[in-house]
């Protein structure tokens, strides 16, 4: 059952990823990315990361991607013209990338130590309580620094995107 779920959500993630790269209109790419994030949230649940799965849905799919969709709808720049990739890139680059990735996959399979298969429920430390404990004791400094980072980002976005007052 876990393998079947992994296969289904991995297939959804890969198909939506390919769709993101192949589609011409940015809004189709944005919705494919939302599909990838949903599939990844399900995979995080299989790996025992329940809080991260919920955070992925709330923050990534529900807020960041909505921001992307808004900007695409507001700018309304239309579909992309047919991309003219140099033949060097198309005929040499993509196969090289696939070869490199194949090597990495083979190395991952061979070199990593044998670990038990991923069973839903085997990892119990992904709850909100555990993450809260770790976040507010061991990782307190990064947590406070990210709050300052978000404040800087808010200020930057407001300053950059406001109307010019002439």
């Amino acid at each position, binding site marked *: 059952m876990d393998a079947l779920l*992994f296969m289904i959500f*991995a297939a959804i993630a890969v198909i939506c990823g390919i769709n993101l790269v192949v589609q011409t209109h940015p809004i189709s790419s944005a919705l494919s990315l939302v599909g990838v994030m949903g599939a990844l949230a399900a995979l995080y649940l299989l790996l025992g990361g329940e809080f991260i799965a919920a955070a992925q849905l709330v923050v990534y799919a529900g807020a960041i991607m909505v921001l992307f969709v808004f900007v695409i709808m507001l700018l309304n720049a239309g579909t992309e013209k047919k991309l003219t990739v140099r033949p060097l890139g198309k005929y040499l680059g993509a196969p090289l990338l696939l070869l490199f990735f194949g090597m990495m996959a083979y190395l991952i399979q061979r070199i*990593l130590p044998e670990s038990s298969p*991923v069973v839903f429920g085997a990892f119990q430390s992904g709850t909100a309580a555990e993450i809260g404990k770790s976040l507010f004791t061991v990782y307190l400094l990064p947590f406070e620094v990210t709050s300052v980072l978000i404040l800087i980002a808010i200020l930057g976005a407001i300053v*950059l995107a406001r109307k010019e007052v002439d």
Partner: protein
Amino acid sequence: MPLGPLPAAVPPSWYLTLSAILFALGVLGFLLRRNIITVFMSIELMLNAVNLSFITFSYMLKRVDGHIFSFFVMVVAAAEAAVGLAIILTVFKNRQTLEIDEVSTLKN
């Protein structure tokens, strides 16, 4: 990958392979596309692939730190998306185009 009938549960290296596939797709999108927003979304895809790697390693090492790192990656991605899209809006207001090849006035 082992051939034969599907096992009841999947080894975590398959999750890492999926993460590598998604990262490769993100790199492809980043290099081949010309619309700046699609390039930005490919960056988000790469960040998601890295998140999956973090969670998988957290499962393998039986520690919660991978989840914390993944959480910080999400927060930084949110901040980066906000500022990046604001910059894209400003560029569009000034150049009326979203193609990265046409924003080239500094080129010789």
